[in-house]
């Protein structure tokens, strides 16, 4: 039951993009087409699941025993950067077809604040290992959901005749606002 609450809360109620404002850059940047946003979503889910395990182990088996929790930011960002590189290299060797699909998105993920954000958040919420993994995968699904929905809307927006000053990012932001409003409807769920 607890896992169920975490999943619903992470996907709908506290959606990482629309309620917590993490990962806005890919949200605005890679959301022009539904197909690319699906690829980005899959890549983020993959990396986030691994990051959550690694962040959990680092925090409770390295940083806490040594008493250096203040080094969290430096350690996490370096490990995430290295991890993304490693995932890229391994994917290239083991599964070239998956690499073909996700490859372009992987380097972008290092600077995706959602990944570092999730590592810090799950330490803040003091989840155990199982909860951490469930939480981060659910969050990543929430991210993909928001991205794909938004891409669907933007594909249509391109055909609209808009005032010049509103074209591009401004109208995208206003649309995102309305989407966020729709997601607020879920807030009574949990």
């Amino acid at each position, binding site marked *: 039951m607890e896992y169920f609450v975490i999943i619903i809360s992470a996907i709908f109620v506290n959606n990482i993009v*629309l*309620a*917590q*404002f*993490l*990962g*806005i*850059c890919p949200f*605005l940047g890679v959301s022009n087409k539904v197909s690319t946003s699906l690829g980005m979503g899959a890549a983020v889910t993959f990396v986030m699941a691994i990051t959550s395990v690694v962040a959990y182990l680092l925090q409770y088996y390295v940083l806490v025993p040594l008493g250096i929790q*203040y*080094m*969290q*930011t*430096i350690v996490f*960002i*370096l490990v995430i*950067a290295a991890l993304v590189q490693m995932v890229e290299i391994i994917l290239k060797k083991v599964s070239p077809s998956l690499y073909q699909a996700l490859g372009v998105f992987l380097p972008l993920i290092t*600077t*995706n*604040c959602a990944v*570092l*954000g999730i590592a*810090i*958040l799950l330490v*803040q919420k003091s989840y155990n290992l199982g909860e951490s993994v469930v939480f981060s995968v659910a969050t990543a699904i929430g991210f993909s959901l928001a991205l794909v929905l938004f891409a669907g809307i933007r594909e249509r927006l391109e055909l609209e005749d808009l*005032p*010049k*000053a*509103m074209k591009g*990012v*401004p*109208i*995208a*932001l*206003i649309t*995102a*606002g*309305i989407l*966020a*409003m729709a997601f*607020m409807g879920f807030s009574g769920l949990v």
Partner: protein
Amino acid sequence: MNKWQTFTKGLIKENPTFVLLLGMCPTLGTTTSAINGMGMGVATLFVLTMSNIVISLIKNYIPGKVRIPAFIVVIASMVTVLQLCMQAYVPALYETLGVFIPLIVVNCIILGRAEAFASKNGVFSSALDGLGIGCGFTLSLTVLGTVREMLGNGSIFGYKFIAGDGILLFVLAPGAFIALGYLLVIFNKLTAKMK
């Protein structure tokens, strides 16, 4: 380009939020009130200026191939310094800004300036560049924070000017997107007129 222009270009012409559209996460996430927006802006200004100074000092000793990881370590150290200082002196603001303080590390503005400016210029110019871009960022965050606080709460910097509540939506998540969207429209209109 003279020194004065190095400083002032960040305010309007290369404003990180309204022109370059960088660092969107803290821009949307922390501007629930004018004072929070300003706090976030000043925190970023500090990290940006310090990391620009350090990187321009050590730029000749970093091998080209590992320069991005080296920049990230410098930036992350500055963020850690900032975290410790904020916890000691302004714990209330640190609590409000929460996860966005450690996330300054992945703010693309800072790595962008390190790569585009500090790694090619002297210490003094880099410091000025960091101050200028940082002030531009602080300015736009304060403006967005003020607009949201005015509409959502009927107050500016905590001083109420209307009785009762405002349009609560603007303090909540959707208001952030909508307010920034319309501010961008106004900014685009104004800059188009100036040209």
